[in-house]
């Protein structure tokens, strides 16, 4: 339910007024957007860029699902199909989901901890503006003679080394994305550790800030590992080294170890901020404090720690000692414990709450249910003996898409609907938001659930053609995919309407049950907020009155 309150008290009112007094936006398009050092503008740039990449990667997914609509080769050549699967993954991971979370971090972290801006605003600008060049370079490979990368987002040698000259562009693009991510993470950590308002101790911070702090440490630890691995691929390809080339004494399996030492934490980089957003939204619409705030913080840290020591579950089939298989199996299963704590705490927060079901809450509940399905299929994949059957089948595709689409992407949608009125100062259309949710929630299951059956029946991933026995489930999956893809246009319509057309003004505290510093600011917040640190008390702390 939308709040009808406009202010919270004299302190907060005067706060907004004081900040408004200094609300000097830069004039001119270039000054405002190209040279900006303002965390809100840079957050907007990240979010717009991520949305563009979401539709670019989504268009590639449509090509994939159209080709797989029926058995036989329909629309594209097999090599182009492989380029589509590879580019779809690289763009969705590095271009859509990660930049979207950095956009949320930019917008929300300073406002949530009472800081005037990010700690290093000029580096913040640089972090963003590297990205369009990185992705222009990556996408340009599709126009080159040798085509785009086609070895899968994992870039496994020897296949990735058999590509043409465009591989150098891919490696350089990955380097640039990595540099951008590392600079963004440094900024997040420096901001959270040094810029909090007086009284905002670490254990008073909103969960979203906590999850981003831990995510930023993960990024700094693993992005250089990816950079090192692709640099070695580059020298193997162009300079005659043999790090991963068996013919020269190198070890291709070593690449898989290095890649997944990056790749598994990367999965958590995409999902931990989602945990944070959902942990903000559920208490708001259940009108109850988050159940087990401290446990949530420790569970997030535990998941981050465990993410470093489970990588080889992605490569059970390469052959490893039995003790190694057992270790990686049990260590992987252990992740279910802190994840289970989180799901339990979200459900407990909702238990006996005065719940209402606005669009952000619908997406958050959708996240909890569907992410849990993805988590459970992950547990199945952790069982070494079973994984030998499931490996490289559509079961794996179904698993990670459940974690990333109704997981990470639904949380992004939830966060966007939750904070859109705060960012724009206008309410979005609740009716169209709900239509967007229900079509997305139904179609995403039509899209990905049949893929479990395809995988269990033995359909391999990354192929443009398949046996006729897989035809029915593929057709159902493709229909779900087309509906899901089309339904995301509603999201764009809702955003455009909210920004340009909506006449319903949002109050400062948009949602009745919302707590936290961002809600004491006006909607939209002043261009420069919290130049004077806010007062931290029970009414302004996001998770005050925690139910232990």
């Amino acid at each position, binding site marked *: 339910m939308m709040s009808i309150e406009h202010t919270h008290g004299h302190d907060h009112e*005067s706060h907004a007024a004081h900040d408004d007094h200094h609300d000097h936006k830069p004039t001119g398009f270039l000054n405002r957007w190209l040279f900006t050092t303002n965390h809100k503008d840079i957050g907007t740039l990240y979010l717009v860029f991520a949305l563009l990449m979401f539709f670019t990667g989504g268009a590639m997914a449509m090509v994939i699902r159209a080709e797989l609509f029926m058995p036989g080769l329909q629309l594209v050549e097999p090599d182009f199909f492989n380029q589509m699967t590879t580019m779809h993954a690289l763009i969705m991971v590095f271009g859509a989901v990660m930049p979207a979370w950095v956009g949320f971090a930019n917008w929300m972290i300073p406002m949530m901890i009472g800081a005037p801006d990010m*700690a*290093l605003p000029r580096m913040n600008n640089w972090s963003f503006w590297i990205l369009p060049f990185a992705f222009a370079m990556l996408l340009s490979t599709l126009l080159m003679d040798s085509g785009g990368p086609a070895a899968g987002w994992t870039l496994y040698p020897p296949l990735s080394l058999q590509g043409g000259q465009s591989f150098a562009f891919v490696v350089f693009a990955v380097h640039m994305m990595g540099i951008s991510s590392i600079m963004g993470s*440094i900024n997040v*950590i420096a901001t959270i550790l040094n810029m909090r308002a007086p009284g905002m101790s670490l254990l008073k911070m909103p969960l979203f800030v906590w999850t981003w702090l831990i995510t930023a440490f993960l990024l*700094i630890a693993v992005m*250089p590992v990816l950079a090192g*691995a692709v640099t070695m691929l580059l020298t193997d390809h162009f300079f005659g080294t043999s790090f991963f080339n068996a013919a020269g004494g190198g070890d291709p399996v070593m690449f898989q170890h290095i890649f997944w030492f990056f790749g598994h934490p990367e999965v958590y980089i995409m999902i931990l901020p989602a945990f944070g957003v959902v942990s903000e939204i559920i208490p708001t619409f259940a009108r109850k404090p988050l159940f087990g705030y401290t446990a949530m913080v420790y569970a997030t840290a535990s998941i981050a720690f465990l993410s470093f020591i489970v990588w080889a579950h992605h490569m059970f089939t390469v052959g490893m000692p039995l003790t190694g298989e057992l270790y990686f199996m049990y260590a992987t299963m252990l992740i279910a414990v802190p994840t289970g704590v989180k799901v339990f705490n979200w459900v407990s927060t909702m238990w006996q709450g005065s719940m209402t079901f606005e669009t952000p809450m619908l997406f958050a509940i959708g996240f909890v249910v569907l992410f849990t399905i993805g988590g459970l299929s992950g547990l199945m994949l952790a069982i070494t003996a079973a994984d030998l059957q499931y490996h490289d089948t559509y079961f794996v595709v179904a698993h990670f898409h459940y974690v990333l689409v109704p997981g990470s992407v639904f949380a992004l949608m939830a966060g966007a609907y939750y904070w859109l009125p705060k960012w724009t100062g206008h309410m979005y259309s609740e009716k169209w938001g709900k239509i967007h949710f229900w079509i997305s929630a139904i179609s995403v299951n039509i899209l990905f659930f049949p893929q479990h059956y395809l995988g269990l029946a033995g359909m391999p991933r990354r192929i443009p053609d398949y046996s006729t026995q897989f035809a029915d489930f593929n057709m159902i999956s493709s229909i779900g995919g087309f509906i899901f893809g089309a339904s995301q246009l509603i999201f764009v319509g809702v955003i455009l309407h909210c920004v340009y057309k909506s006449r319903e003004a949002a109050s400062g505290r948009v949602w009745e049950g919302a707590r936290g510093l961002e809600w004491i600011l006006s909607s939209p917040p002043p261009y420069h907020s919290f130049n004077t*640190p806010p007062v931290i008390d029970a009414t302004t702390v996001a998770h005050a009155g925690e139910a232990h």
Partner: protein
Amino acid sequence: MEKVGRDEIAARRSRAVRTAWVLGAVAALIFITFILSGVLKS
């Protein structure tokens, strides 16, 4: 409302820059160590 003085703001900025340098150095060290470990092995 609590005021933060100019000295405190300057101190925070210098702490933030120091944090950034330390984290950047850690990232660079991980990158270099990975490459070096591969070079020394082969």
